[in-house]
């Protein structure tokens, strides 16, 4: 399978408008020592590439580019790997076309 440069996602998100609610992330990853397979799958499955592995091998989320699709909620919320809610009213992604 051809591998696509990951840079592309950031380029794509650049088209979008966001109103970031600083300091109030609407998704939180439960602190862990070893990430679960569900959390690890988010490194690939998140369409905005919000999930990344840090130096310590922990999965982190940065929600600034989140499109609020809910994929990570579907995969990771039931097990408690993440806490998921919608951003406060007016914040988050602002689609022009949708």
């Amino acid at each position, binding site marked *: 399978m051809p591998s696509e440069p990951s840079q592309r996602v950031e380029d794509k998100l650049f088209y979008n408008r966001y109103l970031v609610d600083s300091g109030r992330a609407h998704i939180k990853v439960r602190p862990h020592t070893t990430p679960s397979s569900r959390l690890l799958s988010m490194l690939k499955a998140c369409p905005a590439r919000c999930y990344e592995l840090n130096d310590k091998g922990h999965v982190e989320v940065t929600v600034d580019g989140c499109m609020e699709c809910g994929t990570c909620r579907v995969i990771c919320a039931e097990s408690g790997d993440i806490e998921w809610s919608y951003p406060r009213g007016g914040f988050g992604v602002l*689609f022009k076309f949708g």
Partner: protein
Amino acid sequence: MIEERFDAIVVGAGMGGNAAALTMAERGLKVLQLERGEYSGSKNVQGAILYADMLEKLIPNFREDAPLERHLVEQRFWIVDECSHTGLHYRSDDFNEEKPNRYTIIRAQFDKWFSEKVREAGATVLCETTVTELLQDSHGRVVGVRTDRNGGEIHADVVVLAEGVNGVLGTRAGLRGRPEPDKVALAVKEMHFLSRETIDARFNLKGDEGLVIEAAGTISRGMTGMGFIYSNKECISLGIGCLVADFQRTGETPYGLLEGFKRHPSVAPLIEGSEVKEYSAHLIPEGGYKAIPQLCGEGWVVVGDAAQLNNAIHREGSNLAMTSGRIAAEAICLIKSRKDPMTAKNLSLYKKLLNDSFVIKDLKKYKDMPALLHTHSQNFFLTYPQLFSKAMQDYVRVDGTPKLEREKLMLNSFIKARSWSGLFSDALRIARAWR
């Protein structure tokens, strides 16, 4: 805190929520609609195709001022492998009718217009307000909502949950579970802008004629999914979606699939030179009839994608949302007119009316389809498209091989890939699930 009490609160301003709010407001109910986006439509994502019939039932003269893109005159289904597509195209001048049946739309713009109609009908629409939970009394009866606005408790006789596929309120209140990975698809989409003339020329269109391409095959890399290309006036909506469970299992990336689809030799020339202006992602309910949760209870009903009402086989969702929203609202209005309370028993009228409509009848018809396609994705989305493409190429390529020999080779390739019993059971399963 909003002291006022409402007859109904509608959570969400998508197709289902707008249909419900409009219907109730028109019939004189005191309606509050809450939407978390900066305006109605700013959080909503769809392909998108609008089905006129279901909107006509709500707004008969919608063609006068709704922001419609193109009416559809052609439908193309493609089975694709790495470098080819085999197409079934249906185009008819009948679709150039006075009141066309299907249109492409741009949801953020369309929903803004729809919301104006809701306001004109008399509903109060409050945007930039996220509902955080349902208020329940000591008996578990839903009596209102809490929002993220200061002290935001608001009370109503009934709450219409039109919170979309990824609705959290119903789950938080224990009314339904979260969507499961094998019952929702993740779709990603880009908006490709081109001049109107370029789109007309590339797709053989004139005036406001529009076209849809739906493609399945190796583009989903063995996962259950499909790609789509919709022509708008001055842009093309292009996207691809696959089951969330398949993304989880395979480690494929949504944007990787999208790039692959865009690079496909049958697709690349269609979007060449375009300017991309948006990238979006959204979940689509794929579980069908068997995934429908409880539709109503004490003081609440759920409509549209939040109720997982989507016909994946015919790719119809927004019309099911509009219809379920309208029917729920009609049931509520009827109960209200009788001065009856919004109990689970009384609200079950919604369920009964929905069961009698095309919404549930269609979903019931295909109740076994999701399980079939989701569990045999390698066969249906990779093996068969590859075999089929090869067969088509062999059929048209002329190289001196005797036809009988060629047909034998073709048949052998199918048997080798799936075996006689495999081919037979696949055919039988599809026939059964389709019936």
